């Protein structure tokens, strides 16, 4: 196992994060704060409680998930796409490192950054709403698993993308709608029955539900299903990346 390679990639990627600290951290915090102001304080003050939780507090887990998901994907996809774009990928391909080590370096760095941003947004939320976390350990488990699994997914997008437009395509066209329709701002029990059934096909529902449960003890789906969904998604991403490195798809001629 070439742990030095994992360490080198991780350090290099984290250095990029800290080099661009303003855009890395300030911008997601700012945009989430705006959500809190608009949905939590301005509009939220006119909305009744949702299942006994004030609306401002209710949307906190969803907002954190929204940012963490998009951050995980964009960090990891950019991390591996950039070497492809500028040609430095030759070094990764010629290194005595396995796919597991290369992936681990990029994914851990992307997940760390997303995790940091998730915690910062959580801290920001305390300024806007009264918030209590019923299951803090589970909250961290969900946050870590989400960061890791969506960083893996982002890594796949980064390998798949052949230009910057494609790099933005999946986060814009698929992920953002899935998060918005996945119960970030509402409980799916508030939907008509037919739409509730449709929502169950949205994998993000399971993530937000599990994460929200760790805050308020409220869940749209059983906790076990949330865990199965996130672990299944992680496994599928790992298998896909393994196949990519084995076949050299879009990285090795």
């Amino acid at each position, binding site marked *: 196992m070439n742990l030095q390679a994992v360490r080198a990639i991780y350090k290099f990627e984290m250095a990029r994060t800290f080099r661009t600290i303003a855009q890395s951290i300030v911008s997601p915090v700012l945009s989430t704060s705006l959500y809190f102001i608009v949905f939590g304080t301005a509009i939220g003050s006119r909305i009744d409680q949702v299942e006994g939780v004030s609306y401002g507090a209710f949307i906190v887990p969803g907002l954190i998930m929204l940012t963490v998901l998009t951050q995980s994907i964009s960090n990891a996809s950019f991390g591996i796409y950039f070497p492809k774009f500028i040609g430095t990928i030759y070094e990764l*391909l*010629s290194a005595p490192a396995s796919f597991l080590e290369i992936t681990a370096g990029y994914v851990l760095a992307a997940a760390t950054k997303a995790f940091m941003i998730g915690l910062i947004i959580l801290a920001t939320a305390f300024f806007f709403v009264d918030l209590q976390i019923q299951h803090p350990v589970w909250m961290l488990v969900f946050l870590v698993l989400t960061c890791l699994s969506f960083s893996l997914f982002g890594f796949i997008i980064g390998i798949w993308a052949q230009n910057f437009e494609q790099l933005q395509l999946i986060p814009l066209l698929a992920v953002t709608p899935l998060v918005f329709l996945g119960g970030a701002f509402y409980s799916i029990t508030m939907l008509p029955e037919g739409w509730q059934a449709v929502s169950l096909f949205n994998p993000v529902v399971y993530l937000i539900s599990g994460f929200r449960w760790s805050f308020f003890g409220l869940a749209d789906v059983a906790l076990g299903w949330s865990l199965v969904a996130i672990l299944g998604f992680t496994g599928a991403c790992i298998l896909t990346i393994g196949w990519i490195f084995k076949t050299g798809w879009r990285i090795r001629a």
Partner: protein
Amino acid sequence: MNAILKVDRLTKTYEGGFTALDAVSLDIMDGEILALLGPNGAGKTTLISAICGIVQPTSGKVSVGGHDTQTEYREARSLIGLVPQEINLEPFEKVINTVRFSRGLFGKAPDDKKIEEILRDLSLWDKKDNAIRELSGGMKRRVLIAKALSHEPRVLFLDEPTAGVDVELRRDMWEVVRRLKESGVTIILTTHYIEEAEAMADRIGVINKGEILLVEEKGALMARMGQKELRIELAEPLDAVPESVADRELELSPNGKRLTFRYDTSADRTGIVTLLSALQSAGVKVADVETKQSSLEEIFVGLVKKQEEEAP
């Protein structure tokens, strides 16, 4: 000398059916500089890429230091350093960090003393904290070399290290390569500058259309394949080549003051003595004679042309 790198019938056919490498076999000796010459698109970069793991070979085997590049890729790759043709560097990163990154990627523990030694050797130490984008083109090439050397490889591939580089920098680069050879690194250099191969290589390989046309020790190659010219300066100008020597391959200069005779150094008889006595008999007065070795460029062009003529 032992072969540190063995390439055995390496073939690469791309999806579209284009064969970039056609059963290439090649042994590279420990400690030598091998220059791989070939025109653009000959397969030089594909060969390097297939050895280093950037391109997946269609068939064939490569071993480095006795380790197969497919089954024992970790051992094999850790012995190789690669300096690519293009300047592929992260523009916003500091010089020292990008070199540290390469060392770690190749599985070596951090060693800032070693990194300092490499950067000093390449006259980059003063620039260690500069972002890559602030460097000149020549310095960026040196950074690529520093990255390739950061894990102390035994074999170094230099893919067209002086392409598009000015004359001064090119000579500077040659000096770097010589020093690397002295330190015991085996160097495989691809170039289409004949002058570069002539100046630096111990052996020369010629590749064209994915096939190795020959690999030979530089001196032997030039002696074996080189033609020589005998230039005869005449005391009095001639209007035409004298009839008694008209059957020989002689060329009279436009001003009639020089006769040029081409001969093969490997032939049993060069014909020089009989030519000179025939000229004397014809009453031609010789003022001076000089010989000139044909350059590697002429040999190279001749080989490539021959292959193209023979190709169906």
